[in-house]
């Protein structure tokens, strides 16, 4: 009898669907690729044909321009496509705008590829949908029981409290430019912070794209050209890598904050140079990973990337056969 691993193969560079002749999130250039979402370690440039949600394609084009790929096919959430005897659907993954799980059916078997996902509410994208399946191929970025993210609004409240405590200083928040940035902005808006938010130049394009896709972000202003004195008491968003570079010297005595699931572990927070670590993640934490396995009850679990040992151990303990795929090129993404 044909087994799932016979028609969906795990190679170091990604998952390859044999009858459909396509790759999912390949790490090198291929003829036919499916993107789960727009982060750079999943959507890479240089492929031939690309299939993804409308939002993910827009993000890839915005990031890579002409290098994004030769041809594009948009597929709406829930729409069904047949590719060489394999039916394919994209379902919301709750990770960032446009992020999708890939649901594949072939030979009476259903395989769900999660891409990156989370289970808690995100005001910038639709929530993860649970589908029963034979094989669940999951990420495990935060696949250790020490990663348990607190409620995001509680972390936003800590940021706003610090802004109140240090009214003469600027709060510089390191956020990944796709997803985390816009989610933090929306969370701040929901917490009642209606004033201007200032952006590092690298965030402007994707914020504009989110707005064009219907995610309102309010009053956003570029840092560049803003007098230093005006930034006192304000919140500035920048890429994580810019927290400690010379760029931040233009800011008035900044309190450096960083919003990421990695902030849960102190040593990691210190490595990021974050004085105010904010534990806000776009990935499932340990409890969400466990919850997802529990709800999906798949016949087996394959773990693509992250801290797979612990999740494999847990799945095995609760009676779900599990193995690690060890794909390359996806280590400790900054999008944590």
């Amino acid at each position, binding site marked *: 009898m044909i087994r799932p691993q016979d028609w969906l193969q795990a190679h170091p560079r990604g998952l390859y669907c044999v009858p459909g002749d396509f790759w999912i999130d390949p790490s090198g250039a291929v003829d036919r690729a499916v993107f789960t979402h727009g982060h750079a370690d999943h959507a890479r440039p240089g492929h031939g044909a690309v299939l993804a949600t409308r939002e993910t394609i827009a993000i890839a084009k915005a990031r890579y321009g002409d290098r994004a790929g030769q041809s594009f096919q948009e597929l709406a959430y829930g729409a069904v496509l047949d590719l060489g005897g394999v039916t394919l659907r994209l379902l919301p993954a709750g990770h960032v705008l446009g992020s999708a799980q890939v649901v594949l059916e072939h030979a009476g078997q259903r395989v769900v590829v999660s891409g990156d996902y989370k289970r808690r509410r995100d005001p910038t994208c639709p929530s993860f949908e649970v589908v029963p399946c034979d094989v669940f191929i999951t990420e495990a970025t935060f696949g*250790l*029981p*020490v*990663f*348990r993210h*607190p409620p995001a609004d509680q972390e936003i409240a800590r940021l706003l409290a610090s802004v109140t405590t240090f009214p003469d200083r600027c709060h510089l928040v390191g956020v990944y430019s796709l997803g985390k940035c816009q989610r933090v902005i929306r969370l701040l808006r929901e917490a009642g912070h209606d004033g201007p938010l200032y952006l590092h130049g690298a965030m402007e394009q994707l914020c504009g794209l989110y707005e064009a896709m219907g995610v309102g972000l309010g009053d956003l202003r570029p840092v560049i050209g803003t007098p230093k004195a005006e930034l006192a008491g304000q919140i500035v968003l920048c890429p994580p890598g810019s927290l400690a570079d010379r760029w931040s010297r233009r800011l008035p005595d900044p309190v450096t904050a960083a919003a990421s699931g990695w902030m*849960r*572990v*102190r*040593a*990691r*927070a*210190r*490595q990021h*140079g*974050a*004085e*105010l*670590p904010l534990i806000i993640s776009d990935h499932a934490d340990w409890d969400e990973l466990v919850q997802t396995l529990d709800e999906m009850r798949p016949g087996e679990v394959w773990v693509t990337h992250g*801290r797979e*040992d*612990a999740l494999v*151990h*847990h799945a095995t*303990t609760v009676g779900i056969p599990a193995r690690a795929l060890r794909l390359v090129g996806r280590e400790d993404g900054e999008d944590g």
Partner: protein
Amino acid sequence: MQRFAGLLDRLSTTQSRNTRIALIADYMRTTPDPDRGFALAALAGDLDLRTAKPALIRDLAATRTDPELFRLSYDYVGDLAETVALMWPVERPGNETPRLADVVGALGAAKRGAVAGLVERWLDRLDPTGRWALLKLITGGLRVGVSARLARTALAEIGTPDLAEIEEVWHALAPPYTELFAWLEDRGPKPDLQSALVFRPMMLAHPLEADDRTGFEPGDWRAEWKWDGIRVQLALRPGEARMFSRTGDDITGAFPDLADNVAGHAVLDGELLVMRPDGTGSFNDLQQRLNRKTVSARQLRELPVGIRLYDILLDGADDLRDLPFDARRARLEHWLAANPSSRLDLSALVPVTTLDDLDRLRTSPPHPAIEGLMLKRADSTYRAGRVKGLWYKWKRDPLTVDCVLMYAQRGHGKRSSLYSDFTFGVWRGAELVPVGKAYFGFTDAELAELDRFVRANTVDRFGPVRAVKPELVLEIACDGVQRSTRHKSGVAMRFPRISRIRTDKPAAEADVLETVERLIPE
């Protein structure tokens, strides 16, 4: 407890010294007695709870978590308290969170067997930050980058008394320091110093750098040998003697042979050394007397200790610290003549002629237990701490050995994602034998380079330890080499540190064991 946890949490990620001082001062101002006093003691390292060993926390974790998941988590986080705090399975923290003073009080009163139950109940009531702080507190390793001095500097922010005044009274006081806070807040008198034998902050030296040597006037300076023992302070009054380490720890109990054989009324500064009738012992000899609760009769006989006196701070009730060095030296000589002891002698003054002469003396000292020279300004008053320009230490150049990197282990805390603990060896025939372990001496960039080498050249793994291909040569600097029965090579280094990464040198040209053995002083 949650307030204290919040303070520790902010401190653990705050680099700026001024911000740390402000955070601590703010906490001390706004937190009531006795919680703040216990917090202060915890920050300053003076809260000795003695009750919870890491094993207790491990055992508790074992009852509430999966062992494999615990192992993987601890390996990743690199810190026991933090691992348990984050993993601890709590449905919802209770609303009765314990106060810091309650925790300290309950642990102090608890019988040994009751501690685990207390800790478990507290863990169930605290949030992850509170759990982390609790576990850090009861295992005695806060490690939030706050020294006792920084904590006292913060105290100087909250009232009129300045840092020097606070340092002076500090060692006469004990947690929860209610009289100290009363004094700081103008609600009480300055705490009384005369009623106890207390530690006075010691004067420390800077290393002599090239810049310090310009314009050297021999007449302005006094020189002494820098003895390789333990710097101590001896406080005496009739019928009582106490000895303190440089950091103010009372170490009298481990040295009854000394305490029973000195008398007088003074506070003295000197070097604790093994002093046999036939001469001064090595640091290795002294080491056998350190960190012991009980001393055997044989050790007392074979390794008698004494103090080589450098300075005098108080003569009777007479505070000499504002006198210049020369005047104190005269008083010291006079005091010792009046209070002779078989366990005390005087540090000799080395004649100061030219820097070149001193350099020669420094590099070839007359005794193996000398590790260099001390240079002190003739007019230097006795100032607490490391004051620039008054006292210098000019150490013998370190010994260096070219070793081959053999094993690496991930660091803890800030370095938990980096391979930062390195074991290295030298050749014995065709075999490498380990001679030491170092985890400092390198720059951040060199650490990143070492980490890359380890990851790319791993040949075997033993738990958190990786064995690497024997290809990378490290120049190791150390302060000395001793015989050791603990190491397979039979030698051990003192203060080994990585001085250079010798990518230019093939591993086969690293040093051989015989070369290292020749560095052992006979």
